[in-house]
């Protein structure tokens, strides 16, 4: 066999390719071959007829809030899972208590643990939200940005600066979001419904979606898409400051 690979995954069952087993050759971090006949590699892993798929992508994880269950209290949980959307607001308010204790150190420790847990379960891509407001300040963003850089090449983490408490309801949050972008956060989030009126919700979108040109990572949004939360021009991960995360929370 002329071709030699860095790593070969042998005897893989692949979706959409019938019953036959395939062999996957990897070179330079990329899939270089998928063949029905055996391949040779410096290292080989035997899939032994098991299903092989692309690894898992978690598009939404509040990584700054993991392992805070005991800190948030049962009351918050009950409000969120009570089945009534009306209580979502109550849940957010109760959960916000935790943020008064936000500190980069423990958030980083908790989040690191969850990335490990995730990796064990096949998660290699995470879009991670960090509350970025006057209560959470920049503690979550700092922790997750550090984590993102430490884990580069193993788990791809995209950090969303997310004004969970609202932009108009929480004066000062916008400034924290701006600073998060200057610190190289990847995405701006928003949560329009949390504002007091529909007009304020629109204002929230207008402020978060087309970020003012004076800040870094600007995104021109056309007038027609401007009013639609989360509508962003296509960009590809892992380009930094690449897109606009839509409403979340």
């Amino acid at each position, binding site marked *: 066999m002329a071709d030699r690979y*860095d*790593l070969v*995954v042998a005897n*893989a*069952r*692949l*979706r959409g390719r019938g019953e036959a087993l395939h062999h*996957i050759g*990897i070179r330079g*971090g*990329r*899939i270089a071959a*998928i063949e029905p006949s055996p391949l040779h590699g410096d290292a080989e*892993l035997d*899939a032994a007829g*098991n*299903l*092989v*798929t*692309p*690894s*898992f*992508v*978690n*598009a*939404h*994880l509040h990584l700054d809030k*993991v392992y805070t269950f005991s800190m948030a209290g049962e009351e918050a*949980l009950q409000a969120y*899972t009570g089945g009534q*959307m009306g209580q*979502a607001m109550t849940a957010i308010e109760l959960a916000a208590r935790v943020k008064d204790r936000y500190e980069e150190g423990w958030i980083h420790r908790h989040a690191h643990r*969850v990335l490990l*847990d*995730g*990796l*064990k*379960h*096949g*998660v*290699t*891509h995470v879009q991670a939200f960090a509350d970025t407001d006057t209560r959470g300040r920049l503690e979550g963003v700092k922790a997750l940005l550090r984590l993102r850089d430490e884990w580069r*090449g*193993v*788990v*791809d983490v*995209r950090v969303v600066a997310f004004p969970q408490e609202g932009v108009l309801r929480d004066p000062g949050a916008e400034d924290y979001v701006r600073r998060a972008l200057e610190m190289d956060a990847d995405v701006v989030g928003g949560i329009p*419904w949390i504002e007091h009126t529909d007009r304020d919700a629109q204002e929230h979108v207008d402020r978060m979606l087309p970020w003012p040109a004076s800040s870094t990572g600007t995104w021109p949004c056309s007038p027609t898409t401007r009013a*639609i*939360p*989360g509508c962003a021009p*296509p960009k*590809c*991960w892992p380009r930094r400051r690449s*897109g606009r*995360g*839509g*409403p*979340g*929370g």
Partner: protein
Amino acid sequence: MACHARAMGLYPEPYFRRLIGLVRRAGMSFVTDPHTGPLHLRVWDLLEVVFLAAHSLGRSTTRELDVLLDMITAQAARVLRVADYGLEVGRAAHLVVLEGSTVLDVITPHRPPRYVISHGRLVAQTTGTTTFHAIPTP
């Protein structure tokens, strides 16, 4: 993209359909509330999310399970616009060797993958063995 979007569950059908039309036109995508159960535990285990979704949504045919598996792989990557993703020659090598030879076999026990490969490197390996003692012989 819109995340959670839980209020949509309360919208009257005609309003909901009108909204979906608008969303389509705008090219928006959704990340729905994951079915992590009321305790929000194990939010890192996406196969368990699939398992729970299969039950809560009543999805059990091969085709339906395929769709659910797509939601934590290809579809999620599409929503996040992850470059270079997918099991094809030329793409970045982000792979999992799962436990089970069919989607149903994988989802039912939803064990951790045997191997996890990221950027072409082995980054996680799980072996699980149970040893029985003092069991009756058949």
